[in-house]
């Protein structure tokens, strides 16, 4: 257990060094957020009918999304890809640790460290100046925090599925491009799911991606009542267990047929 904790904290400290990238990321997130707020503002101005989410709710939703952008499982671990290409993954297999959980710990650090660097300055700007609001109530805030931990668990399981797929594709070109699409569209990161057509909602509510963005953010807004947190956490737990099991099974098959190139 201590070894895994050491991996998380070592990776975490390494990733906190990328401050220039964080500044650039902060600028990009701010710009992107501004565009999206203006687009939604124009659409809301164009209609008189009432919508499933109010415009101020959407604004808070967008800034929350920009702040927590780095937490979504939209990228793969570059070091793991390099390991697969160069064959140093063989050393990883020799270590007296479970490879799946080692990678899972790397994923946790990879999602938290850059998020902290970007989220704090973004919220400091967005709260007073750009219309982002506090959680709807204390209960909503606590429920959101809990669901965010759950979202991290789901997200790292997805990240690991992508990493494990490298046993087959090596370059990861295809998977690394398709996963972000699924994550963006299906999680509600681009458009809040309540604004989508009904049939799309019923499909997306059944998928795990929703628990990355949709449920935590709507708990924050009070759009999903805080008392539903147990249902959300249960969903997240079931999906995490399912994807971890799948990931471990795929990894076991992958390591059995692994051929390390070079010498």
């Amino acid at each position, binding site marked *: 257990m201590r070894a895994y904790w050491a991996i998380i904290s070592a990776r975490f400290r390494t990733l906190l060094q990328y401050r*220039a*990238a964080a500044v*650039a*990321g902060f*600028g*990009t997130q701010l*710009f*992107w957020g*501004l*565009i999206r707020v*203006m*687009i939604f503002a*124009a*659409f*809301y*101005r*164009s*209609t008189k009918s009432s*919508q499933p989410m109010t415009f101020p709710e959407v604004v808070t939703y967008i800034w929350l999304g920009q702040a927590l952008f780095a937490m979504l499982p939209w990228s793969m671990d570059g070091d793991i890809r390099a390991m697969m290409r160069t064959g140093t993954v063989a050393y990883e297999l020799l270590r007296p640790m479970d490879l799946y959980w080692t990678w899972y710990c790397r994923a946790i650090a990879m999602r938290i460290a850059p998020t902290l660097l970007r989220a704090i300055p973004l919220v400091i700007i967005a709260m007073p100046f750009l219309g982002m609001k506090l959680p709807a109530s204390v209960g909503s805030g606590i429920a959101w925090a809990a669901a965010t931990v759950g979202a991290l668990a789901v997200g790292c399981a997805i990240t690991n599925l992508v990493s494990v797929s490298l046993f087959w*594709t090596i*370059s990861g*070109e*295809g998977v*690394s*491009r*398709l996963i*972000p*699409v699924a994550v*963006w*569209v299906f999680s509600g990161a*681009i*458009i809040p799911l309540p*604004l*989508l*057509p009904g049939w*799309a909602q019923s499909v997306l509510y059944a998928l795990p991606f929703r628990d990355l963005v949709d449920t935590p953010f709507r708990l924050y807004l009070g759009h999903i009542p805080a008392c539903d947190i147990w249902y959300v956490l249960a969903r997240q737990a079931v999906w995490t267990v399912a994807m971890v099991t799948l990931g471990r099974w795929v990894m076991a098959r992958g390591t059995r047929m692994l051929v390390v190139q070079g010498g």
Partner: protein
Amino acid sequence: MTGTIGLYIKYVAIAIRAQMQYRLSFVMSAIGNLLGTAMEFLMMWALFDRFKTLNGWSLPEAAVIYGIVHVAFAIGETIPRGFDVFPGMIKSGDFDRILLRPRNTVLQILGQEIQFSKVGRLAQGLCVLLWGASALHIIWTPAKIALTIGAIIGGVCFFFGLFVLQATMAFWTIDSLEIINTLTDGGVETAQFPISIYRPWFRRFFTFVVPLAFVNYFPSLAILDRPENATLPALLSWIAPGVGVAFLIVCLQAWKIGVRHYCSTGS
């Protein structure tokens, strides 16, 4: 001049052959690019599906705007891709080698990398553009066809210019400046909706400082016969593509200054 074009064609042929060595990877990248960028249209469609109209613009009209900028960006990020990887060449000192060769620096940088997987964005942009145009029953006069093609060429030049500008800055900063990405990727994101929906300061910035509005917004007003045309100078839509070309020429001048200023990192 013919030698220059001949050399560029050779670069293209090499790039195609190199990328065809990993055919599956190429196909996957192209499909990934297609789906990844088509998602933007999906978002636009979903918003129109819910809100029906956007400041008096319908979905097919917005689709024409969207299509032009996506097609322009697909080509405009394929050709000057070498400029995108240029900061790495400065760091490694590889630019010294380029300076030693008796050929134009711009041409050689262009030859460094050409990524054809952006054909995915090109395909979806073109489909959206043609769908929008056919849904609107646009009467394609020769002038309108010329303006559409001109707008795309102007847009290619505009994005080309931004990549050149980004590379030029690396002469001073050594490192790559991510901030330009907000103008390239962010520019597409911005310009896939009519620029008139944004706030005035934002609109002015993307009209007068960075001439993004000339890529697709102004030409589309004439192509779609939009009512906004009445309040604007009649010729504006027709000369808009020229602004993109002028922008590229200015950026290439900046590049020349950068090359003169260059001193090797010496590694």
